[in-house]
């Protein structure tokens, strides 16, 4: 039987890696991918606690998190397309204008 703390450890490592990616990478799309990774780490935690504490609510919340991630990806990629159309690169350091 795998202890619950093993799942939380995997989740913590993945979340930290994703956080590092958000902080370190400069490409906007890879920053968004790292955010997806952090959401997935949270999902592992939710499902693991749902299994070990014998309640369905954790899986439900994980399902909602997936829906939110889908919306976030759609809007984020739309913003990237708009920014890229304005001939600004996808480097997050160069995106410092709120109007164009």
């Amino acid at each position, binding site marked *: 039987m*795998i*202890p619950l*703390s*093993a*799942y*939380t*450890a*995997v989740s913590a*490592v*993945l979340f*930290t*890696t*994703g956080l*590092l*990616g958000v902080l*370190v*990478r400069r*490409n906007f*799309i*890879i920053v*968004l*991918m*790292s955010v*997806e*990774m952090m959401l*997935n780490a949270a*999902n*592992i935690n939710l*499902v693991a*606690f*749902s*299994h*070990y*504490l*014998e*309640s*369905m*609510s954790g*899986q*439900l919340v*994980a*399902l*909602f998190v*997936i*829906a*939110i*991630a*889908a*919306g976030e990806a*759609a*809007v984020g*990629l*739309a*913003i*990237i*397309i*708009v920014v*890229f159309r304005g001939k600004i690169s*996808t*480097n997050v350091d160069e995106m410092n204008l709120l109007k164009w």
Partner: protein
Amino acid sequence: MVLVFFAYFALVSIAAGVLVVALRHPVHCALALLALLLHVSGLFILLNAEFLWAVQVIVYVGAILVLYLFVLMLMNLKTDERYFHPSALYFVGPAILGAVYVLYLLLQSPFDGAKGTAPPSVVLQDGDTYAVGITMFSDHILQFEIVGIFLLGAIIGAIVLAKTPKALDPEKERR
């Protein structure tokens, strides 16, 4: 046997996560993210969450990741980015020590709490999908509706943002 599968899924998902952050080419990063998502869905199977496994494969791998790859191919990115600011190296040692300590604390903790009403034997009787459906449409109906409204807003926002803009008004341009 379960332990072997858990070790495989956990190690490969962590390795893929590191690759997502470390690889240089964005398409390679997207493929590493694909491996990560599939192995995380394997962890869901080990936790008796078949419905979430299916949703993960269909929504994450089938929809979100394809959207990412589509935008990557569309924009044909040539990135030549620098990863680390040189001063970041000063934080590597303390960061590793802190991470090991946090992992040690996590593995020590028993993580006990009040048990809910869905032990695995009850869930497996009718299947995970049945249990998720019953819970969603009885206890969590409000969140379900809120997510519906949220997705509608996201669709409208994405369409409005990505729409081709009209040519600028020449009058306005002159001013």
